[in-house]
């Protein structure tokens, strides 16, 4: 049985952290992934860039509609996830537009962030 663990936090609170605190937390995350990999429990995972980098894609009448920001339709619930490799946002949007549920609900596209030992982007006081 596979399980998806989704991470939620209050971005505003996290942005109040100092760069040092933020980097320390990211180092903990790297260690956590290493432990889970060693024990064979880790399949895939990644942190994301903050929500202000989000783009929402919907397909209606065969037309791709692109809007700024994370989707905020509370009637819709998380139904799955795709980790995509794309050269830029336009390619990511084109790929997201091919995900079938984009015709019924919405697909949020957000860049993945790299976990670094230090200088982690946007989340500590850097953002």
């Amino acid at each position, binding site marked *: 049985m596979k399980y998806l663990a989704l991470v939620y936090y209050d971005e505003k609170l996290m942005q109040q952290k100092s760069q040092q605190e933020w980097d320390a937390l990211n180092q903990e995350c790297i260690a956590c992934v290493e432990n889970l990999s060693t024990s064979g429990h880790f399949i895939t995972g990644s942190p994301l*860039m903050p929500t*202000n*980098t*989000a*783009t929402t894609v919907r397909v209606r009448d065969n*037309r*791709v*509609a*692109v*809007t*700024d*920001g994370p989707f905020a339709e509370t009637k819709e619930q998380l139904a799955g996830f795709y980790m995509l490799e794309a*050269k*830029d*946002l*336009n390619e990511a*949007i*084109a790929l997201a537009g091919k995900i079938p549920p984009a015709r019924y609900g919405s697909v949020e596209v*957000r*860049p993945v962030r790299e976990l670094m030992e230090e200088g982690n*982007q*946007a989340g500590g006081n850097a953002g």
Partner: protein
Amino acid sequence: MSMPDIFQVRLQEIYQTESRRVLATLIRLLGNFDLAEEALHDAFAVALTQWPTEGIPDNPRAWLVSTGRFKAIDQLRRKARFDVSYEDVAERLQSELTTEQEEAHSIEDDRLRLIFTCCHPSLAPEAQLALTLREVCGLTTEEIASAFLAATPTVAQRIVRAKAKIRDARIPYEVPEAQQLPERLDSVLHVIYLIFNEGYSASAGDKLIRHDLSAEAIRLARLLCQLLPEPEVEGLLALLLLQDARRAARVSADGELILLEQQDRALWDQQQIREGCNRVLRALASRRFGPYSLQAAIAAVHAEADTMENTDWPQIVGLYDALLAMTPSPVIELNRAVAVAMRDGPEQGLQLIDALLARDALTDYHLCHAARADLYRRLGQKEEARAAYRRALELAQQGPEQRFLASRLAELESD
């Protein structure tokens, strides 16, 4: 004129015609909006000191691009003393240096890339507007803020965030591929239309027309038309030209609104109308036109009539039918209702407007109540007309419109 004066004038001209082109190319070369803006300023600063003694180069644009790029490399090298990660970027820029000839051909493409990047649909609409006016048109943040009645820090923040999103979400600096073009072009056309609209009828404040913004929108539409001659681009340009052609007749000497029926049609700009009409015909003939071309066709029918009565109302109603089929909207229904009233009489128009209000559309739209008031006035039903004018007046936000409605109301009350 003395030599320094001639030089100043020439430099000013070069700044006006070339600065946006140079910026567009620098953004592509440097891959960074802020660095490109800095480089542009640096390049002009060097020109200001070098050109008076060494003369203006044969190709100022290419000179500015290459000077700007060298300045950016210097800048990155200086930053690299504190942060080594800049060294790689500086290295890459140094190694990618191309000749001026190689550069020249892609400069017009760069302007198109800049427009599409600023109008990317994954940026919020307000951010698209602000970024386009800032980067493509070269307006200052203060000018944009005052045009849209926003606080300067708010606009500045919108621009900063938009640039950060372009960088972090990796919005590419490119003209979309053919299959993506229709929907991407929509946002570009929409932004130009919004800029024009703000100029044609300011959303608030005491001035009805902001000619600077209308002119900027027309300039952008013309540029886009040259760079990307799609029928709907031509349709949008035609629409803007035809609307703007009535500018001199739309407002009285003391800044009051003059409705279409009272306008002195001799003041309409006939040359602009001819150009608009020709462009509409071309757009419609392509059979690949969209809603802007149809709106332009409606404006063209108005522009070609010598009086309100001699307007081809059946044709206008027909064009509204086509427009509604393409993009259903209550505002278009309202405009169609007004045209129907002209074709069939005020009662027919009122029926359509009342049907709109009955389904709770446009209840708070002042022009809906103003149109209703006018039709009652024409029928001689003063009581209903007064009530509708009062409702319109409550909802109107703009000085000249409020004064117009108040004067109509006063006329009815004095009878």
